[in-house]
Every structure is written in structure tokens, then in C-alpha cells.
């Protein structure tokens, strides 16, 4: 085991897969000469050359489309979007070509491609650059969507994503790049579509994915001191969703809090909330609670910016609510 950063875990995954398969290429803004806007691709240009690590112009729709074409031609491109906020420019390519080609070609043309980059709010980036778009991508049949929260999961899932024959949307987070975690020296893969129970407890299920796992873990520690033991289910994959794991934890604890840094309307959280009430209705002792970002564009004012997002305190409150503690 080695303690490495999320950024390093991604780089290891890219490097290993590029060595393993010469068809794997990386393209995006500043990925080559500049070593990546967030230094994920540091050293890859030197190692693999400019034919496989390609700097692109600032035209998301253009280079995303080029990469999809390359995938049709037999390459396995990894597209780095500087952030998912910029991917909004490329959505037509992703939704109409990458997601649908296999279906519309009657199974003849598959698109083995990974779209990756930081998703969700960081700090001081204001409303246009602080968006969490997981549910937008997870909405489309034909895409796989993953959102790993730890270096270990990031490495194992990125390797699986590159080897997957379907388009995989891989969501990271700017703030997570520097977070550290243990990653084995030897090679491993994590299956797409499998959630991971990060902590076990019998009282309440806290379901989350991606960056908020950190505050969920902190909230669980506070709750632990108050005698409340939470299951923390890290979904890791949003599509396919590990429905079995969700039902297992909810049927055990009879109450669920879903933490999602997106807005509440038509979010992963609201979908999972429906799924639970639909499939585990008789197991619920309280209405499912959501902790999401507030339903507003992200404020620039830092105090408001923090207040608009899920927090440790909001999670603790929600857990107490589904446990019927502190109100009656």
C-alpha cells in the first residue's frame, strides 16, 4: 500500500492503461505541454509522445467530436475536459453521438471512450463554474457514469472505464485532486456499477457519491459520538446504479439520508429517493431525507457559497430528523 493523492491515482491509471494498450490516447486542453490544468497528466507527454497525448484548441464540442470519431475508428480515447462546466459545450456530441451510436447502428458501432474531468463546485468560482452535473449525464441511456470519491476507487474505476467498450463519464473534483488515500502497489480493477459500503452501522443509511463522501464521513463521526451508527454507502457508479446495495442498507436501517451536491430537482438524490420509496416502502420508518445544494445558482460570496452546499451540520440534522430525534 502507498499513500498517494487522487491526482496521482488517476495518473497511475492513465499511465498503466496507456502502456497496456497503444490505442489509448489522451486529449484535451493543456493536457500535454502544460502537464494538465490540474497536473493529472504530468509527464505523460514525455513518456508517450505527442501522438498519444494531444493538446487541443479551446473547442470542447470540436475535440470531443474528434475523439468520438477516433473511438469509432478503433482508438480508446480519454477526453479530459478542463471542467464539467465546459462540457456543456460538448453535450450534443456526448448525448447524440457517443450515447446513441451503438443503439442506432443496431449494435454495430460502439464507442470505447472516457470523458473525464473535475465536476461540482470548488471555491470562489461563481455560478457558471460551480455546477454539479451528475444527474444530467446519468439521465442519458447509453452512457455509464462514475464518480469515485477516493484515490483507490479513482484508480480502479478509471482503469475499468478505459477498458469498457461503452462511453464512460468519469467525474472527479478539483478539491479532491490533493486528497490522499491508500492505493495498492499491485494492479487492480473496480467493477463499474458496484457501490461500496464505506462504513457500517445499523441506525441510518447515508447514501452519497463523489466529493461529499468526505463531509458524510465527518458527520458520521459526530453521530457516532452521539450513539448513532450510520451505514455509509458510496455509490461510486451512478449508471448503472447499484440498486441491490441501496435496498440492502435501507432494509437494514429503515431510514435513509441521501447526500448529493447537485440541486435537488431531478437529481440523483431525488431519483434514489423515489427508488427507495418504491422498492422499500414497507421498510421505511421515516420519509427519505435529501441533503443537496440549495436550489439557487451558486453565489460568489464565500459565506453564501458554503451555505448553499451540503455541510456536515446539514447531514447531522437530516439524520436526526429521520431518526425522530430532537422533534416530535
Amino acid at each position, binding site marked *: 500500500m502507498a499513500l498517494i493523492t487522487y491526482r496521482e491515482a488517476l495518473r497511475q491509471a492513465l499511465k498503466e492503461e496507456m502502456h497496456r494498450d497503444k490505442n489509448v490516447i489522451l486529449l484535451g486542453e493543456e493536457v500535454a505541454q502544460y502537464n494538465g490544468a490540474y497536473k493529472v497528466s504530468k509527464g505523460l507527454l514525455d513518456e508517450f509522445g505527442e501522438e498519444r497525448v494531444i493538446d487541443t484548441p479551446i473547442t470542447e464540442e470540436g475535440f470531443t467530436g474528434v475523439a468520438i470519431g477516433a473511438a469509432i475508428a478503433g482508438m480508446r480515447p480519454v477526453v479530459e475536459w478542463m471542467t464539467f462546466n465546459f462540457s456543456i459545450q460538448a453535450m450534443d456530441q456526448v448525448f447524440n453521438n457517443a450515447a446513441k451510436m451503438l443503439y442506432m447502428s443496431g449494435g454495430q458501432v460502439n464507442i470505447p471512450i472516457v470523458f473525464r474531468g473535475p465536476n461540482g463546485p470548488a471555491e470562489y468560482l461563481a455560478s457558471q463554474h460551480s455546477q454539479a452535473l451528475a444527474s444530467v449525464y446519468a439521465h442519458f441511456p447509453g452512457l455509464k457514469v462514475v464518480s469515485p470519491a477516493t484515490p483507490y476507487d479513482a484508480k480502479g474505476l478509471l482503469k475499468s472505464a478505459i477498458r469498457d467498450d461503452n462511453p464512460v463519464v468519469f467525474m472527479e473534483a478539483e478539491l479532491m485532486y490533493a486528497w490522499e488515500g491508500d492505493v495498492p502497489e499491485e494492479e487492480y480493477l473496480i467493477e463499474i456499477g458496484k457501490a461500496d459500503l464505506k462504513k457500517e452501522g445499523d441506525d441510518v443509511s447515508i447514501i452519497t457519491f463523489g466529493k461529499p463522501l468526505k463531509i458524510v464521513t465527518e458527520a458520521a463521526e459526530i453521530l457516532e459520538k452521539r450513539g448513532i451508527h450510520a451505514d455509509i454507502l458510496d455509490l461510486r457508479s451512478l449508471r448503472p446504479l447499484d440498486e441491490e446495495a441501496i435496498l440492502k442498507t435501507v432494509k437494514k436501517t*429503515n431510514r435513509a439520508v441521501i447526500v448529493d451536491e447537485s440541486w435537488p430537482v431531478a437529481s440523483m438524490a431525488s431519483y434514489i429517493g423515489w427508488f427507495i420509496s418504491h422498492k422499500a*416502502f*414497507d*421498510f*421505511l*420508518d*421515516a420519509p427519505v431525507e435529501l441533503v443537496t445544494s440549495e436550489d439557487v445558482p451558486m453565489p460568489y460570496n464565500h459565506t453564501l457559497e458554503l451555505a448553499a452546499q451540503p455541510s456536515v451540520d446539514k447531514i447531522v440534522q437530516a439524520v436526526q430528523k429521520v431518526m*425522530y430525534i430532537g*422533534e*416530535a
Partner: protein
Amino acid sequence: MADKLLMIALSPTMEKGTIHTWHVKEGETFSTGDILCDIETDKTTMEYESPEDATLLKILVEEGGQASVGDPIAIFGKKGEDISALLDEIKKEESSKADTKREEKEKESALEKKTDLDIEVKRPESQKAIQPDETTRIKASPLARKIAEERGINLSQLKGSGPQNRIVKRDVENYKPQEKSATTHAPYSEDSDQRIPLSEKRRIIAKRLSESKYSAPHFYLRVQVDMTRLMETRKRYHETHPDAKTSLNAWLIKLSSEALKKHPEVNSGWDTDALIRFGNVHIGLAVAQEDGLITPVVKSVEYKKIAQVDHELQELIEKAKNNKLSPEEYTGATFTISNLGAWGIEEFTAIINPPGSAILALGAIEKKPVVINDEIIIRPMMSMTLSCDHRVIDGATGADFMKTLKAYIEDPALALT
């Protein structure tokens, strides 16, 4: 050959079109591709191009008139052609279309009526709207309800600790039935009561019998009958027909049917604004089941011999005991018999089984001293009690019927008269 010019669909969603302008007049000739008329569709005004070279013989839909897609709007053909046959055909089509429409409407309304009835009968209680009375409704989480159901705990005995007094898991789990206190040795405790959810059958029995008892003013006529001769007759029949083994009920059903033929006013029903005099005698017999009772019906008893009545009765009873009766086999009784003789009941009164207006309750046959010609003689006697719906049957009418029935049972040969 003259032909009809039909309204065509000029847009994918068009169902009807209005003729805006005719560009060709009656008697004028036109060629393929000429604009015959302008038609307003649901979206816009479109040009109707001619599909042929011909003469416009007759305009059927004038400017401003409307036609459905597929309807004729004009007739075209050769100049001077006779189009009367075609016009007749169009007329016929129109009237048959109107008929179909009317029939459909009637069917629809009949269907609606039927559906209403079905809903009334079939909708289980649980699907009825939740009572809006927020103060009496028990609020409980789905899990709490499930656990309470599994443990047989009545939620109304619990106090909820959740928001708005919602009963939650912990309330059910912490619930302990109240210990019987040491000082009061009550022989009765509510905790030992069981709540048995109603079966659909029990619900229907309760509904039908309550309706009958509450809406039909019952009165009762009781008479003792001497069963000597009927029993002898039945015995002789069995002696002469070694294979036959008819039940006494079959005989009583047949004799009742003969008496009802003589008193059709008893074989009648009530329908709010009319009395129904039933054209046939359908006699139901109450049959006990494990979870309720049912009255299979022997239809048109007046046309059947005792052996046939008996045969059908055995089949119906067998089906009744196995819950295999179809609805037409247990509905429509114009008269009903309930016999508790086998249980040793001396006499009882029964609740009328609609649509009939009378039910005959039969007790056990017991040897009793009776006075005949000033002598005390022992005879097998049976008590019969007729419950009548007074809206349909008056006292004397019912009494006449009972007199006849008593006479037939005491001397079955009279039933032939």
C-alpha cells in the same frame, strides 16, 4: 364512370376539413394537378389538387361546409353522366353512419352504467379514499404498520412519538400489552380480543343481509306441519325406485314451487317503483360453508321433477361447499328455503334473500303429540316460518300461501290439483 371525390388528410393530424373555396364549378372540366378547392385544415389552408382529368358533376359540400377525412365532397366523371345511383349510395352511407354512432353511444352509456355497478360491488374497502378526518386517522410509518401487523398489535392502542404523533418503529417495538393488574381479576380483557379482517364474502353477506333487513319490513308467519304423509310418499318413491335417493329438501322445494304457482304474488320482488311478478320459480337453498353461507339456486323448479331438482341440488351443494359456484348459480332466487332441521333447531326466522320477497325457515322434524279428532296422537311435526317483505306481500296473502303449502306437505297428492 362517375366517382366520389373524397376529403383527404392534408396534414398528418387532420381529421376534418372545411371547404374554403371551390375553384372549379359544377359542369366545368379539370385536369390532373389542377387546384379543385382550398381546404382549411386544423393547421392552415391547403390546396386540393386533382388526381384525374374529369368533369365536376356535383358539389356535395359547399363552401364553408365541413367534411371528415374520407367523406365525399363532390362527384366527378364524364360530362352528362347519370349520378343518381351514386347519390343514393352516399345517402345510405350517411344514414348507416348515423346509426352506428347512435349505437355506439348507447353501448357506451350502457357500459358506463354497468361499470358503475361493478365498482359499487367490487371495490374493496382498502381502496376507498382515506378519510379526510385528520384527527381520527392513525399516522404511522410504513415500517411501523408492517411490524404492528406482523405482531398483531392494534395501532390505535399506540401513542406515536414522531412528528404529528406519527407512530414509528420504536413505538411499536416498545409497546407492551398492559399487564393485568394484580388487584382486578377481570375475566375479560380487550387484549384477548382478536381482530379478524373481513373476507370479501363476509363483507358481502353483511352488506346484503343488512340491506335486506333494513330496507324490507319483515313479518313472520309460523305454522306446524304434519310430515307423516310426505315422509311416507318419499319412502314409497324410494322403494319403487331403488336407485333414487332424494333429499327431503328436494321435495320441499318442489312442493313450495307448486304452492308458489298457485300464489304468484308471493313469488314476487320489490323494485322501488314497481312490483316484479317473477315469471319463473327459482328457489334458493341456504347452504352453510366454513367461512359463511351461500344460497345456490335451482332454476325454474316448476318445470322440473323431484328427481331432477334433487340431482341439481346435490351438484349445487357440492359446488357451494368447494366455493365453485358461478354467480348465476347463486343469484336470482325468487324464493328461498333455509333448513336448520339438521342442527335440531325447532323453529327460527330467516332474513329475506333478495330479489325474492319471502324466505321459508324450516325447523327439525320432531315427534310431537297432536290432537286429531279429539285424540292425542304422536306425529312427526315440523315448524315452518315464512318471512315476508310487507312491501310486496300482505299478511293474508302470505297466510294463504302457507295454508296451501301446509296442505301440499300434509297431503302431497293435493299438489296435483
